């Protein structure tokens, strides 16, 4: 384990920036967002960034390729370029897990080269959550915020930042930082960890369990009568899907620039009524079906394809942001309720 004074974070970022791009959460005018570090930017300790680090690997919108159309012929222009090496600093345990959730989608054969390109150049420095919020429920999905994953895990205890490499990539980076960091004992962060564990137990959603969900529950929950009531007030906006660190649905569209065609990919939301609209019909006719799809996908369908891993990490962004305050915690409590009696 390595240590550096918290006051010297700037030195740390400057050192990493010599060889890598550095992204970190920075406090903006309204809330925190990830941005590329420049001299003078201050790392924000805010728990949840407005938008999750998913943006960095799977941006809101990205160009896939260009076309030049002339008469009857078409030319395809590959616009991809190799990503730089970069470090994301301060990723919370839940968000680290969310990247694993995305990996299982995008890196599964056939791999998405756009995502893979950025993913393979990234070093993730995670940050333990000393002060979780009332909306946090990562424990529900087996995530321990005291032991965040990622290439390098970090803890803050008082004035010191401790760093521990979890992977070879992380070790390589820590080695590079040896000049500005000091050796610390393996148990140096234990006080911080203990505090986190103690605090996690106090959270209002600490008792929320995901046991009722998982692979093989499709038939059980699909026709559950509670979906109607839960989805009743849903506006059909895309807030939950866009702030969600694991939602990965996208659309591919063409934009005619007047001198060529750009094919781009952008986030899309299963909550939108035109998501599945075809000229031949619409398989998800009402908001009930769209609402159900989102939660069934996170809690049942995804685990079925991914060894039981849920596609929710309990970051709590949707709890905080939903305009009508309907969210996955309420869904799990309502739909999974009967299971308590089993």
């Amino acid at each position, binding site marked *: 384990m390595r240590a550096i004074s918290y006051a010297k974070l700037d030195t740390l970022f400057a050192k990493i920036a010599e060889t890598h791009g550095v992204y970190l959460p920075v406090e903006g005018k*309204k809330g925190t967002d990830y941005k590329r570090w420049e001299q003078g930017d201050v790392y924000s300790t805010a*728990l949840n960034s407005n938008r999750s680090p998913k943006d960095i690997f799977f941006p809101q919108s990205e160009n896939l390729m260009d076309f030049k159309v002339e008469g009857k012929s078409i030319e395809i222009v590959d616009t991809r370029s190799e990503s730089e090496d970069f470090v994301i600093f301060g990723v919370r345990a839940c968000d680290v897990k969310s990247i694993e959730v995305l990996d299982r989608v995008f890196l599964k054969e056939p791999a998405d080269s756009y995502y893979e390109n950025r993913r393979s150049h990234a070093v993730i420095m995670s940050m333990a959550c000393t002060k979780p919020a009332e909306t946090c429920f990562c424990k529900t999905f087996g995530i321990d915020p005291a032991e965040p994953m990622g290439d390098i895990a970090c803890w803050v205890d008082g004035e010191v930042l401790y760093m521990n490499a979890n992977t070879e990539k992380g070790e390589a980076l820590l080695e590079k930082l040896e000049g500005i960091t000091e050796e610390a004992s393996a148990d140096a962060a234990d006080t911080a960890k203990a505090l986190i564990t103690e605090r996690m137990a106090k959270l209002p959603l600490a008792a929320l369990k995901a046991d009722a969900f998982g692979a093989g529950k499709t038939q059980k929950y699909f026709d559950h009568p509670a979906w109607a009531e839960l989805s009743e007030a849903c506006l059909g*906006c895309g807030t939950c899907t*866009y702030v969600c660190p694991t939602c990965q649905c996208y659309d591919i569209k063409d934009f005619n620039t007047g001198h060529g065609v750009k094919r781009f990919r*952008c986030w*899309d*939301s299963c909550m939108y009524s035109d998501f599945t609209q075809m000229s031949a019909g619409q398989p998800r006719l009402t908001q009930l079906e769209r609402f159900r799809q989102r939660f069934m996908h996170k809690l049942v369908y995804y685990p079925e394809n991914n060894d039981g891993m849920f596609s929710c990490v309990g970051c709590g962004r949707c709890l905080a942001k939903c305009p009508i305050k309907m969210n996955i915690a*309420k869904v799990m409590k309502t739909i999974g309720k009967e299971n308590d009696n089993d």
Partner: protein
Amino acid sequence: MQKINREALIEKAAALLDAGTVDRVLAWKRGEFDYDVTPGLFTTREQMEAELVFGDFCGANMSKYLIKETLKGEGKVLVFLKPCDTYSFNQLLTEHRFDREKVYAVGIPCEGMLSVTAIKAAAGDGISKIDVTEEGVVVETLFDGTKVFGHDEMLAERCRNCKSKRHVAYDELMGEEGEVLDSARFDEVAKIEAMSSEERFAFWQGELSRCIRCNACRDVCPACTCEKCVFGNPDSGIENKAITDSFEEKMFHIIRAFHVAGRCTDCGECSRVCPQQIPLHLLNRKFIKDANNLWGDYQAGEEVGSRAPLVDFDFDDMEPGEAVIKNGGEQ
């Protein structure tokens, strides 16, 4: 002013249900935390006693839900309307969006709703309880003890600049009727107008660039009731999708605000729901302020059937060139 509490609402609703006047109730449902309240439908007293809440976080405007709700079944639906909700209610009636006969509207007084965002910004993460007492807003946190904030500072922006405590529509009123207020709601707009062109551009660029195009502002808006939105048209060029560049976010917000210009009652729901905290009401209010400035005061929803400024004209209206100067000032 007499404070209306949840028990009073439940009594009223239960009485109306028992009398057969209505067969369902549109109100606010308890959430996980003190501040997360979901609009919901109730049909029995038991349900209401278990889940209905009414407090400082019941900001959601129920008017728009009436469109969907009145299409279901024959019976009447009971809706509780705060003063600002009644304007939306009238505006929807003006546009024939629902059948008035199927609604029983009960006006309830409102002393302003609190902003969760403001409280979270002030108190930090880990809020376990929020109470409003005579001292102010008392926030209990998980790790930092109890904090007290002034009630007015924690009010939602739209409530701090409340335009009216008077109900413009109801079948029955609970509590006392309030007055139309002399609100300072256009002050912020005037402040932006006073900036230089560069500053205004920088201000809005900074605000709008945060937009993620979740469409929550549109979907919650009681004036946005088109069956098929222009943003749902793939040929519009700005379909319901994540934003691709800074032009699209401007285009979306200008068009969204323009489409409700003259119909927007300034209920402030758009700003309340914006996950990125973009002050969208400043766009809507600009249109309201300009229209008032050019063609005389008009409050959408004040009365059913009134003619909005954009579907009306005068032979001697001002020319657009002059209007821009009148609205924006000499540069």
